[in-house]
């Protein structure tokens, strides 16, 4: 079976369009970020989150009412949401502050929440779990997350520059940064909390979104050796077309698992799975439209040069992109 057999799409022709579309999404994301901010998970923002399970069906409004009435300071700034399966009658109450960080009074706010719920007369409930994070922890985590992302990008750039050529490394890193920004934009649109799990998904994505890119780059390198008479533009297009099937299938299988996590993984993994789904889709898109295009931008109209592991040869000047030629599907000699 074959999908995308012998395609001859001129991907590079669409590179400007692709970049415009990406920028629109990124800028829209940034706009949302600027105006509404990005909701921070409790690990980063600090605060108190209590998950309670009621004995009978209880609405979010009832819980909010109880807090408005009896929680010191009322229900303002308090997030109340259903946790997990609605049939389980579980509600999460999140308050942005904690008891004093000094000494042992960190859990004071939690007690106040439970007290307010008890006074609210909603009915019996059981405390299923609590998470209380003091402000110092979040601060530390934020800088650590940023550093880890930056270092892992630098590491990938260095490795690809070493294995391929510098321009390829740049292409892969530009594509990865693109994926990061697009993912952040979607997180902002869909208002997912920036939690530890989401950061983990983002970091994982930076590693895996380069996979498709590397496959395409590998083919470009190989083709640069075999197609010395063709322009870089043409070589890149041919390479993307030749690898299109596997790019789509590999992303597809990863996407299947990410979707399974999204739909069946439960409340805790929701943000994580969402990030992975967006990351996998944008990773595929950027491998095809952004990564190789960056290489061609970076190298400009210079004559093609063979890949890092082949001797450099001069090739004829690049020709115009409109050339419709059957891509070479023949396997090249090893």
């Amino acid at each position, binding site marked *: 079976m074959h999908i995308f057999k012998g395609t001859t799409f001129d991907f590079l022709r669409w590179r400007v369009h692709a970049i415009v579309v990406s920028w629109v999404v990124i800028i829209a994301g940034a706009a949302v970020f600027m105006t509404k901010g990005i909701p921070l998970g409790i690990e980063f923002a600090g605060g108190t989150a209590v998950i309670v399970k009621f004995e009978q069906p209880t609405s979010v409004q009832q819980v909010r009412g109880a807090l408005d009435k009896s929680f010191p300071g009322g229900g303002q700034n308090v997030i109340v949401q259903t946790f997990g399966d609605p049939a389980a009658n579980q509600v999460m109450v999140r308050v942005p502050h904690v008891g004093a960080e000094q000494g042992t009074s960190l859990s004071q706010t939690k007690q106040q929440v439970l007290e307010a719920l008890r006074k609210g007369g909603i009915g019996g409930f059981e405390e299923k779990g609590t998470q209380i994070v003091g402000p*110092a922890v979040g601060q530390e985590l934020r800088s650590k997350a940023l550093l880890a992302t930056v270092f892992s990008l630098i590491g990938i750039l260095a490795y690809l520059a070493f294995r391929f050529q510098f321009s390829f490394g740049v292409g892969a890193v530009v594509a990865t940064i693109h994926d990061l920004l697009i993912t952040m934009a979607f997180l902002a649109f869909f208002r997912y909390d920036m939690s530890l799990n989401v950061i*983990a998904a983002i970091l994982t994505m930076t590693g895996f979104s380069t996979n498709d890119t*590397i496959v395409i780059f*590998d083919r470009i390198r190989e083709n640069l050796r075999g197609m010395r008479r063709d322009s870089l533009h043409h070589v890149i297009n041919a390479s993307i077309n030749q690898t299109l099937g596997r790019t789509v299938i590999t992303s597809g299988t990863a996407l*299947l*698992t990410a979707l399974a996590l999204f739909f069946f993984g*439960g409340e805790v993994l929701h943000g994580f799975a969402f990030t992975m789904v967006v990351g996998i889709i944008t990773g595929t898109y950027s491998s095809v439209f952004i990564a190789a295009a960056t290489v061609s931008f970076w190298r400009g109209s210079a004559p093609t040069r063979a890949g890092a592991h082949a001797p450099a040869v001069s090739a004829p000047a690049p020709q115009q992109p409109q050339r419709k030629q059957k891509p070479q599907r023949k396997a090249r000699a090893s």
Partner: protein
Amino acid sequence: MSNLRWKVVTILAVFVVFFALGVYPILASRYRLPSPGWLQEKQLKLGLDLKGGVHLVLRVQTDDALRLVTDQEMERLREELRTKNIPVANISAPDSTHFRVEGVPGASDAAFRTAANEVQANFDRGSGLNGAYTFSMKPNIQQNLRDESVVQARQTIERRINELGVAEPSIAQQGADQILVQLPGVSDIEHAKSIIGSPGLLELKIVEGAPSASKEALMVNGQIPQGMDIVPGVGSAGDASTIYYMVKKVAAVTGQDLRSARASVDENNRPAVSFTLSNEGGRKFGKVSSENIGRQLAIILDGRVQSAPTLESKINSEGRITGSFTPEEVADLSLKLRSGALPAKLDYLEEQTIGPTLGADSIRSGVAASAVGLGLIIVFMLFYYRASGVNAVVALIFNLVILLGMMAYIGAVMTLPGIAGFVLTMGIGVDSNVLIFERIKEELEAARGVRASINAGFNRVFWTLFDTHIAALISVAFLFQFGTGPIRGFAVTLFFGLISNLFTSIFVSKTLFELALGKRQQVTALSI
């Protein structure tokens, strides 16, 4: 052919070993199969987020440890000056690392400097302008004390938790001054905190003068006399009133001199804690008690006088702490005394309770998502690659088993993100097979033989796979570095998943192809 046989033997051996490590113990405990204890012990452990329990992050107030040493040195100098008859106006400690001596008479300046040499080891002495000397703790001593106090706090917490009998606790230092405590299976966070966090500092001090209901009444000219301390305590009537005792600042005996402490009862059959002093502590206490017969001895616990019995005779090694305790309080108190005092106060930075049902929910949804994800991949691979899809599925199952075995072997902990990592590893793991199969297809279309195509497919894709795996490993390494707890579990899963994937997608899958082709010389078609 013998080459192929060896490959098969290697693969089977690897499979059996990892199956025994990773999968069999789980099956054994689930279906009550016989299994040796050492193997059961290696069983893949569940993280706190799946098992339920208490997670605490504490910060050690290392300044406390510095203040303690500064106070001690200051008192030593005070004693020294008193015995040498060097009068000074005032000795005080403005903060945790400095103390100041004022009004040293010019005539005894030289004598003062000699006396002060005693404390010079840990402190730098200031210039002594106008007879005022400031002693500052040396920076390296400060650093050592801070590090030591964190280590000591961790060890004390470890001892207390071990006494408490929590199964598989995890207590680890995190950063410069933080301690991470994880107590699986514990749900009463407040009790856990009271055991971990209370200082547990026992001091026996001689009471100077009569106790009083007000602090001010004990002061001389509105000040606490030098070398003395005023400590609150429970009123003798047993009601809620507080009375104050003036005691010597330096303790006759502290908790460090204890050999053991246990729950007992006093003469009125009320719960009490009995303790035995060490030889050294007994000698000290014997001396102090014989010199102070007829005076009161304050038994001070965490800065509060519990009782102040009158010394009637010389006491060598045995003592008892009485007060209005419940039996639970007595049990907790003797536990804390046995495990020693904390060197410094603790702040709670983070606390998390995961109820057992919450953990069970997470396991259920994690397993459900894994099953669905794996099922989808298997169906797709069989549908798209036909017989070769079987090859990929076998490689996938190998990958799963090896990953489980590796994680069990290194004692990794399975967390909820770890389960997610597991599913993702599988979803991304088949990518390697896809890349190889697509390449083989390409080679077949170029009208090469089946055997040649398979070989070319594996050979050409090897370096691509190598590169993608290294790039992924780079980001996983930083993920591990960044993460704590569950995230680390996730990173570990991904790390080993990537490694075992290289083995299964290349070595196992190729051997399977070779097995399928067998000895046939001429193979014309491949189901792919």
